[in-house]
């Protein structure tokens, strides 16, 4: 009786192993391969900078992916191929000029901040490719690099005569239905920021619900109805005393909390109106995906960067 049971068990194991082996083989046969299309417009930077990016990022964000043999074994190959595809879609060092010139510098700051936050290279990737990790010294090199290129661009500041235009007659509306409004001018300022990275000055306002949520430390998640508005000016060149004052109006950005309506973007509705004519930003509603992707870096504060904070425990 016992022997029979044992026999049956052995059979089952054999069958199972057979199934596993066959599916493993089928998986290998169907395993996706990562092609390397031609390099059309490579990113150029100082050698010490490109060396870091090549080693740590190029396997995914370039057309020069150099995958190891174990990246090509199923089931891992599926995950790796999907990551490479998504990474190239986001930005590609081999097709750098496909990013509009005006946005390239911003992308470099984004890159530095993704590393700074420990989000890139993908942690699951560095677990098997430890040499891809960016060391603190290398991060400093990258930070100095982006700082130096932005200094060059924004050193002169917005010295243009400040433009004031008559108000727009109609109410500008974002493609996702968020309308521009003026009430924020009576709201509390929750923070103000100066950005050497892109040469702008900002004031951030919160409505009552947002301010109360901050006061009650109830921002994970932020309550429905909270609205945050950021007004952005180009910075003028510093005056003799070093004061950097706002120059021309640049844009206004809005985040509206409605967990249900904006479930696809972590419960925040995004809108941006550019220039004094308040031109709504985004051709399709999917523009908000790029907003929330970057705002993921502020996940710990409910996807909002500019709130007054102190480190936990202080």
């Amino acid at each position, binding site marked *: 009786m016992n022997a029979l049971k044992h026999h049956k068990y052995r059979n089952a194991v054999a069958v199972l192993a057979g199934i596993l082996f066959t599916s493993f083989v089928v998986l290998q046969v169907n395993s996706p391969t990562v092609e390397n299309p031609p390099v059309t417009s490579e990113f150029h930077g100082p050698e010490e900078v490109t060396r870091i990016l090549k080693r740590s990022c190029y396997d995914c964000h370039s057309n020069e992916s150099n995958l190891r043999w174990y990246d090509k074994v199923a089931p891992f190959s599926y995950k790796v191929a999907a990551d490479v595809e998504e990474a190239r879609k986001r930005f590609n060092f081999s097709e750098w000029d496909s990013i509009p010139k005006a946005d390239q510098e911003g992308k470099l*700051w984004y890159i*530095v*901040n993704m590393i*700074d*936050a*420990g989000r890139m290279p993908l942690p699951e990737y560095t677990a098997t490719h430890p040499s891809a990790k960016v060391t603190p010294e290398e991060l400093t090199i990258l*930070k100095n690099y*982006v*700082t130096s290129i*932005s200094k060059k661009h924004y050193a002169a500041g917005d010295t243009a005569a*400040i*433009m004031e235009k008559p108000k*727009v007659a109609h109410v500008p509306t974002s493609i996702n239905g968020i309308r*521009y409004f003026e009430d924020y*001018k*009576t709201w*509390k*300022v*929750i*923070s*103000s*920021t*100066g*950005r*050497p*990275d892109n040469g702008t*000055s900002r*004031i951030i306002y919160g409505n009552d619900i947002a*301010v109360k949520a*901050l*006061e009650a*430390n109830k*921002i994970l998640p932020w309550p429905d109805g909270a609205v945050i508005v950021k*007004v952005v*000016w180009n910075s003028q060149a*510093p005056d003799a*005393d*070093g*004061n*950097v*004052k*706002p120059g*021309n*109006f640049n844009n*206004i950005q809005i985040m509206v909390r409605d967990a249900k309506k904006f479930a696809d973007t972590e419960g925040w509705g995004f809108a941006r*109106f550019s220039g*004094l004519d308040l031109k709504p930003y985004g051709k399709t509603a999917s523009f908000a995906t790029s907003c929330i992707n970057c705002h993921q*870096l*502020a996940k*710990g*504060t409910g996807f909002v*960067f*500019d*709130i*007054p*904070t*102190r*480190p*936990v*425990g202080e």
Partner: protein
Amino acid sequence: MKNLIAVFISASLALAACHDSRKLTPAPETIFDDHGLHVITSFHNDRTGTISVLYGNDEALAHASRERDTHTPGDASPGEVFKLVTWDLKQNPLWFGSNINGAVKSVETVTVSAGESGPVVDYSTEGSDSKSAKNAVLSNAERISFIFAQRASVFP
């Protein structure tokens, strides 16, 4: 072996520290209660490590918005109230490249009232940033001129 343990411990500490700098809690005490005043303008200063917002009542905003070369104490009109709030400037812990206000350092108030021989300008300051008494009179005059000289930011 001892070395290895030391390396491991410092590495985990470094990791933990890394993590902590992004673990934040709101600090709503830095939000200024404007009691209905308007934002006139803002500015920051990397040398002094500060960032400021200038507030004012209707009269002050109207004055700062007027087309002019400078706003001197001489052309102040009774009723104007200005408040210049100054915070520490610190790196935004969530974004390398953006500097954000920290704690409030000072609140300076300038009020203009009607006197017998023209407008009377009053200046007061509260906060950790008060200047020594000796230079106070001179610097008060300087601060008043500075506040009057600010032009309103352009809003849509």
